[in-house]
């Protein structure tokens, strides 16, 4: 095994197949962030994952984009393996959204102005 590469198996990290809770996603995030900070390449294994939510993925990978780790390093270092087509599509949406979310924070607030204002209920 290459010393510069690590496999993070999601089901091992959270101790189950249901990848639902944001708190469990945090555990995966900690593992990924630790490996990235150590300069390692990561195979992020989805093997055995049963259910998967955006809430879990937002925590597990979405918060990688909050600015502590260079985007290029994330892009070059993590490769998902063993993911179903559905899971891969969800992962892609979460990652794309996270990039937007942290790139342009004001965009989300100003979107409110598109909705007509009114009196409080």
């Amino acid at each position, binding site marked *: 095994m290459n010393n510069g590469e690590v496999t993070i198996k999601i089901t091992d990290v959270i101790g189950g197949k249901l990848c639902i*809770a*944001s708190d469990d996603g945090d555990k995966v995030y900690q593992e990924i962030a630790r490996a990235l900070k150590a300069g390692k390449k990561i195979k992020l294994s989805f093997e055995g994952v049963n259910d998967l*939510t955006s809430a879990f993925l*937002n*925590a597990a990978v*979405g918060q990688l984009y909050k600015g502590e780790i260079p985007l290029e390093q994330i892009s070059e270092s993590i490769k998902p393996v063993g993911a179903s087509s559905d899971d891969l599509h969800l992962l892609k949406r979460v990652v794309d*959204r996270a990039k937007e979310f942290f790139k342009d924070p004001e965009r989300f607030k100003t979107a409110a102005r598109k909705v007509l204002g009114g009196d409080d*209920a």
Partner: protein
Amino acid sequence: MIYLGQTIKSSFHGFSELIRVSEEISSCNDEKCEMNFSKVDWFDANMCAPFGAILYKFYVKGWPITVYGQRPEIASILQRNRFLPNFGFDIPIKPDYYGTTIEYKRFERTDSASFIEYITEQSAGKKIPKMTEALKKRFRASISELFENAVAHSQTTLGIFACGQYYPKGNRLDFSVADRGMGIRRAVNRFTGQRMNAVEAIEWATTGDNTTRERKGGKPGGLGLKLIKEFIDLNKGRVHIVSDSGYWCYEEGQTKTRRFKMPFPGTVVNIEINTADTSSYRLASELNPDSIF
């Protein structure tokens, strides 16, 4: 004596009834409060989630609420899903012989693990019959998104309430998640600095990429409800959101909104799925794993 109306369905009228009951219980103060079910001839069992959210506040205060006059068929529904027994009313649990009940349960906001156990248990065996595996998976993911949404946004201290019911005759499965948190209007207005009414706030929260998640050191959000809407579109189901005085219903790509006279004390999301749906839910395009991050 507080009388419940004739029908409590997952509808504007059904939620209005529960809000009225909530207001009337509040006006009991801590005096003995009797809820009379004698007029009720239909109760959508999933509505036990918002009903539980209403009653729980009074329950933890130790207010003496009693139930009275329920017809056998209504009592049976509320015993099979454990709503009445769980509330400490002296009424026994009945077994769910038909396999149509998704048990009423309250969860602490910090206890996602119990919710996961609940989903696993309630999805097993005959609990959710006559659905394809692909549909079951989408359904489980959707209710999990609902729960995590409530965890992330409600800031409730009274817990999160869940309940579901399968209606074989109509090929539908309803599942509701309710909380007694700050509500969508307050969360959205606080975040945006706007002054939206409750319906406008729900519309904002369900549109595009909007989310009230703070960026600073936080996690991204705002995909959960969008994913549910997409699923419901494909499934030809329905979503209700009730929060504060806002009512929002999404069905067949159309949104209907209304305002309640009085507010619901929190938020309810109800999803109704078409259980006869045989879609594979397989996505046509394949993605290259090397281009995800």
